[in-house]
């Protein structure tokens, strides 16, 4: 029996919808971009000198089984080649790009749905021959001809094919048309669009750096790949069956080894690699302290109700999502409850004996010095969510978050109600797009810096707290049945009154999912049009109805508004779009500090005017 290899960051067959799943579509864009750049910029193709393997196809689901010729005299006799260099190189580059947050080759910069864009399309596109696009890419086709003319300096064009070169035309397949179904037919039919990949200059630069790094440390990458292969193999009756390898982990582990100056020929290299892999896994789970490379891992928050680029950086949004979630738990007094319970246990007031609950409490106490503390957390809430907490000298509090958040939710709620009624529409798709974009840009701006690693740590802390407070013995000692009853009881008895747990839980759960939606829609929100948002669709009788995606979003928004007691009148008042004076996408150093204000006042008094500087975003 041979081992099957799986690379979920290239194609994840377990996702619903398979190739049409949004995650797989995003993965496919990255896959095609790297495949194309390897071929165009470095003339690396799997077909070259590799009789065991055909060239990589545009279909990422085919990227799995590599073979090598076992007998040179019989090229048809092949055996699996698990450590094929082309494969490892490809994965190393994907991993490095993902690790650096370059998951979208278009960098969400240009609207992918418009015609005449300077991007890569498949062969059958109907393109205006007179357009600039057609001049550079006749028939919108992608070429595999070698030695292209590289020109990364100009706009988003990366290579300019010459008409005299041989052209090989390929088809990438299709993707659902963001404009929705064709309404001219009855019933409306789903339209599909030529799959397109836009590669911007910044992506090329990062790609080249990844390639350079791989070339410099290729032996180390191969060793790490071997280590991961052995570490993750599944066995059935002693036989290897499947191996799932994360490209991001490959890049992360190798980068750590590079940082530690590990020699690939070290006799203990395998042990070293195993140790680093173990460290990365423990830090990802939030239980291993602060050693991890936090950027390498995704974020998955616990369900509270269980058991009872460019302008918008999705990673920043995911980090803020966690901060938002934790802020609500803070208001709910979950953190304070844990402190109280630990205090009771320390002073011997808690009637629990040796067991997992006590172990968790002890571990909590021992790790306290390295854990993010309340002051730091509140500083984050101020910086990221604009709450008036933490340091009074916070240089960049997110003053706009509250307004933009409410405006977006109110717009979504009103739009949803309008779609499902016969009332005249007051909120357009573009208004939703603008409100979402403003919010996402704002969140992205305040998600830079320490936010992401802090979010990863806080995610682990929350999980640890929930595990601790869910311990049966601890619950029993307070005479409650679940963690939320415990929070209520401890708050009421020791923390000057209980908070509304249901409200904060709902706000936490719906709020983080709304931010997650924004992160998923980042490329579309970054574009100039609301076409890709997919707000409405048509049923079999030609009636307008919300798409499933928008339905879910609207439900979350409605839930948030309902639980905060927002009246319809109040929501309607905040649906009108607001023209923002400034909308920064990157933090400005030295802005809004007391030092600067002091200088400005002095200059004002002296009547000296300085040239205008970019300001911190204002509403």
């Amino acid at each position, binding site marked *: 029996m041979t081992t099957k290899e799986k690379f979920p960051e290239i194609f994840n067959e377990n996702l619903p919808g398979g190739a049409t799943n949004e995650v797989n579509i995003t993965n496919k864009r990255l896959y095609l971009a790297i495949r194309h750049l390897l071929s165009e910029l470095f003339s690396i193709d799997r077909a070259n000198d590799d009789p065991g393997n055909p060239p990589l196809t545009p279909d990422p689901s085919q990227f799995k089984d590599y073979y090598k010729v076992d007998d040179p005299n019989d090229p048809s006799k092949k055996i699996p080649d698990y450590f094929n260099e082309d494969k490892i190189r490809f994965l190393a580059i994907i991993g490095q790009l993902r690790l650096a947050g370059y998951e979208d080759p278009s960098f969400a910069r240009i609207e992918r749905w418009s015609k005449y864009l300077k991007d890569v399309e498949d062969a059958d596109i109907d393109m205006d021959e007179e357009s600039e696009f057609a001049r550079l890419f006749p028939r919108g086709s992608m070429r595999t001809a070698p030695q292209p003319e590289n020109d990364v300096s100009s706009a988003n064009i990366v290579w300019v094919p010459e008409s005299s070169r041989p052209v090989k035309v390929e088809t990438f397949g299709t993707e659902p048309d963001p404009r929705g179904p064709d309404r001219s037919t009855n019933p409306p039919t789903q339209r599909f669009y030529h799959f397109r990949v836009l590669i911007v200059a910044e992506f090329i630069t990062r790609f080249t750096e990844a390639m350079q790094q791989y070339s410099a440390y290729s032996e180390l990458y191969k060793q790490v790949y071997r280590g991961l292969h052995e570490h993750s193999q599944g066995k059935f009756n002693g036989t290897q069956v499947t191996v799932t390898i994360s490209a991001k982990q490959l890049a992360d582990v190798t980068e750590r080894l590079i940082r530690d100056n590990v020699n690939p020929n070290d006799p203990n290299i395998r042990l070293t690699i195993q140790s680093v892999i173990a460290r990365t896994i423990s830090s990802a789970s939030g239980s291993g302290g602060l050693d991890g490379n936090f950027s390498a891992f995704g974020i998955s928050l616990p369900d509270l109700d269980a058991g009872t680029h460019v302008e918008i950086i999705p990673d920043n949004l995911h980090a803020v999502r966690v901060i938002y979630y934790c*802020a*609500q738990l*803070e*208001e709910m007094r979950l953190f304070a409850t844990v402190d109280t319970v630990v205090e009771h246990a320390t002073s011997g007031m808690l009637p629990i004996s040796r067991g997992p609950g006590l172990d968790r409490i002890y571990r909590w106490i021992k790790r306290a010095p390295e854990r993010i503390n309340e002051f730091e957390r509140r500083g984050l*809430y*101020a910086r990221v*969510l*604009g*709450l*008036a*907490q933490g340091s*009074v*000298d*916070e240089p960049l*509090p997110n*003053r*706009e978050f*509250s*307004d933009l958040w*409410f*405006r977006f939710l109110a717009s979504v709620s009103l739009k949803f109600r309008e779609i499902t009624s016969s009332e005249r529409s007051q909120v357009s798709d573009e208004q939703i797009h603008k409100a979402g974009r403003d919010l996402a840009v704002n969140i992205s701006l305040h998600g830079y810096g320490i936010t992401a690693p802090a979010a990863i740590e806080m995610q682990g802390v929350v999980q640890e707290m929930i595990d601790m407070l869910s311990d049966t013995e601890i619950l029993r000692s307070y005479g409650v049945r679940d963690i939320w009853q415990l929070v209520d009881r401890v708050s009421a008895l020791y923390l000057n*009154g209980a908070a509304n747990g249901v*409200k*904060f839980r709902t*706000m936490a759960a719906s709020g983080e999912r709304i931010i997650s939606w924004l992160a998923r829609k980042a490329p579309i929100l970054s574009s100039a049009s609301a076409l890709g948002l997919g707000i409405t669709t048509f049923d079999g009788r030609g009636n307008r109805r919300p798409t499933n995606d928008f339905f879910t979003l609207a439900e979350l928004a409605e839930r948030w*508004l309902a639980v*905060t*007691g*927002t*009246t319809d009148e*109040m929501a309607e008042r*905040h649906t009108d779009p*607001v023209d923002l*004076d400034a909308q920064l996408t990157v933090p400005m150093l030295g802005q*809004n500090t007391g030092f600067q*204000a002091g200088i*400005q*006042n002095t200059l004002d008094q002296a009547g000296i005017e300085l040239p205008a500087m970019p300001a911190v975003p*204002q*509403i």
Partner: protein
Amino acid sequence: MRVTTASELAKRRMEMASRRLGTKNPAEAIGGLLDRSFHLPAHDPRYGNNLLTPGRFPLEHSFSEVAGNALRLDMQPLGPEATAHARQQEASREMRRLTHQHYGKEALHWFDQRSERWRNGMSHGDTRFGAWFGMATDAYGLQECKVYYEMRESDIDNLPPNLKHAARIVMEIMPELTPIFTSIACGRGRGAQRVYFFHRGDLRLLDLEPLLNQLGIGKQLPSLLAAAGVIFGGRFVLPQGSVIIGLRDTNKGLEMKLDVLVAGLPDPPQQMYQLLNMVLSERPSSQSNLHRWVQAMTPDDMQGPGEIGVISVRVLPETPARCSLYLRPSGYDRQGRSAAGPGSAPQPQDAYRV
């Protein structure tokens, strides 16, 4: 052509007033807040959409007998489109910054304790204005800074014990009173919190007697009636929508403040300022402070400092009635197309002024 923002106008006016009064310029301390709050052009009608001074520019200056040498202001933070929650956070942020900067860590801690309920990640969905910000400067710097938080009846539980107890008594004696907002102020020596009630229905001033007796300030009723009677032209029954009652716990006992919204009076006396002067004539230093304040607040190209928005009378167990005047400053709102237009049109006083 470059458009003058309301913030620039406000800063100029504050600088002028502070120079005349001999106080520190408030704009030096809250320049950023003014920029963020009044970023729209001066005279923009959208400013009228506020609950501090409905229909007018959301900035109010006040004169208080007990702080006669101070330049005091109250304002609605952030622009007219801001949400109530954003205002709560902005006012709190500014208050914390100033408190820490001028009064130190202990004062900040005190404020944080009192304001915790309003500084968290949520506000009630039906909150209307959220918060206002206020401050006062004198010759030595920041005399006081203050935040007004909108509150609901259930928020009474978040008040400090003495004030909570007093609030409950007040609401029991006069069920027409509904808590609407609370102010938390930090000064050089101490902080103070006040809770404000809106009075539904007409208020006969004499009906305050049981309330004042219960609060231990019954003996000041005559002085309260005398002052209010004169200032409001003999009116002892105040109509619905014109009365706000404030309570504050001080080290000299409970203080009651009667705020009368002049816009709520059907026929406010046109000579209200002169009547107030008449009351203050008993206390010449207060009267001269008021004159000085009025002169300081009057821009060169205006006939007067503005319109009276609120008249307040406050009493303490051992202190008879003291008055305050809240002014809607002139020059911020558009008065008409020409000097001859409706309203108190600006008329240059200085012949050499361009």
